[in-house]
């Protein structure tokens, strides 16, 4: 297999397979959760479950002052790498073209060198997060294989993206191919690992906010 054939394979059948697994897997995961159902609350409502749920979807992204003081590192590093991932994934023009072919929607991108710089910052933040996970007693105790796997498959596309952008060591088709392949690995694992929190967290926030909102409780 030449590098070009490899690139064509990852852009073609492999990408389709990864897309299929990710989309089908996410729908299955969603139904697995959703169909478990939830009892209707019979207590007299004091607020709106929907309003509470909706509010918490957004409100939960802003940490309270006390948590910021006590979990500052987790919050700041978490914010940096999440925003970094967002910028790198959604604002790099070659990526936008992928979303455009799938959805027909397009939006302006950022200059490539800003994406590159953001990528480096994101990788540094992820490394810091990993070190924190290993060093912090609480996180070390909580962490399982899944957590490290998720870290790895998140880091890999950033690294291969960096190598592809700067053409380090291998040929450009191979580097771009490896980058796309690493994204496909991420896509395949997405529904079946903690990566799916990117979707389920909206359900979690919704339920939390709805349970609280129904009672007229802030959350």
């Amino acid at each position, binding site marked *: 297999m030449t590098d070009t054939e490899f690139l064509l394979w990852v*852009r073609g059948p492999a990408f389709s397979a990864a897309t299929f697994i990710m989309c089908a897997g996410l729908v299955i995961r969603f139904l697995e959760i959703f*169909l478990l159902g939830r009892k209707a609350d019979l207590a007299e409502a004091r607020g709106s479950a929907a309003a509470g749920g909706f509010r918490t979807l957004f409100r939960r992204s802003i940490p309270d002052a006390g948590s910021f003081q006590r979990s500052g590192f987790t919050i700041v590093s978490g914010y940096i790498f999440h925003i970094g991932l967002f910028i790198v994934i959604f604002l790099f023009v*070659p990526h936008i073209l992928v979303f455009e072919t799938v959805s027909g929607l397009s939006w302006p991108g950022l200059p490539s060198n800003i994406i590159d710089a953001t990528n480096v910052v994101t990788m540094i933040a992820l490394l810091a997060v990993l070190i924190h996970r290993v060093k912090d007693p609480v996180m070390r105790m909580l962490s399982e294989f899944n957590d490290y796997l998720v870290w790895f498959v998140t880091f890999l596309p950033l690294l291969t993206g960096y190598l592809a952008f700067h053409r380090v060591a291998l040929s450009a088709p191979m580097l771009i191919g490896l980058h796309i392949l690493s994204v496909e690995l991420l896509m395949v694992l997405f529904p079946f690992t903690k990566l799916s929190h990117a979707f389920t967290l909206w359900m979690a926030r919704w339920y939390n906010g709805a349970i609280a909102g129904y009672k007229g409780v802030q959350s």
Partner: protein
Amino acid sequence: MSKDKTLGETLQERGISRRSFLKFCATTASMMALPPAMIPVIAATLEKLRRPSVIWLSFQECTGCTESLTRSHSATIEDLIFDTISLDYHHTLQAASGSAAEQAREEAMQENYGNYILVVDGSIPGENNGYSTIAGISNKDMLLEVAAGAAAIVAVGSCATFGGIPHADPNPTGAVSVSDLVKDKAIVNVPGCPPIPAVITGVLVQFLTFGLPELDQLGRPAAFYGNSIHDRCYRRPFYDKGLFANSFDDEGAKKGWCLFKLGCKGPTTYNACATTKWNDGTSFPIEAGHPCLGCSEPDFWDAGGFYKALSIPTEDIGKTAVYAGAAGLIAGAAIGASLRARKQSAVKNHERVTIDDLDQES
């Protein structure tokens, strides 16, 4: 012109001044993308060079490569190159025809067995030898016969190097490249459709001057194929700024912005177009407003579409996502229903817990 004299002697005999020779060496070094510091080395080597015999075989090809070479702008240099080598067989360029032509080939092979250079353009049919023959000899047989006595092989053009257009899907002749058939000889690949003329001559000079050049993993000389079009492209700053032409006639196209979105293969294509350029160094496809087709890379004809951006999946992902969603709905509903049933059975199995059920001792 005798083959026994060195190039230096030949030039002197022809009254070509040392200055002219130095100029030739300087422009050749520039063409080969060698640092100017190498100019004296080239001069010293070429001076002592004896003219090697070259046999040029053309198989399934369009003569574009030969056209490219003969349309080469730097006439002086080509003259010198052809002074440098002894082109003993080239069925498009040679005057001889018929059995005389084949005889010339056989003579050249016999006289220089083990020392001549074989240049090939065109791919070789792999399925049925009858697809392409010369003087009743199949391409494959001729290649193997001539290759056996060659000191080295230069495959010119994407057909000879990677199979090229004959090899494109569905590849009716089962076309293969030189390196697919010849495994025991040094092969220098000079891909391109066609290759830049200066690169063809540059490779020959480099080969004659320094022997086998440094090759990349696809057998291409690093001096000419060491950088991607993208990395040497004058429109690269627009890529870095995120300024792209969205169509061939929009404002971005008029302003000369990056052609990535229009399918430019510059990022994955290694060639010298962006610096050496074409037609007397006038321009190259991107400068003319067209995305790079990636012609010097394997399978460029089938590499996901000329006008499809490099990052875009080649298959219909939107459709796949919809099918996947539908499949997920069915599977998810089935799995979800079974989980729900499991929960219902747990609810049914519930035994009322009373205060006497709490103490383990009771």
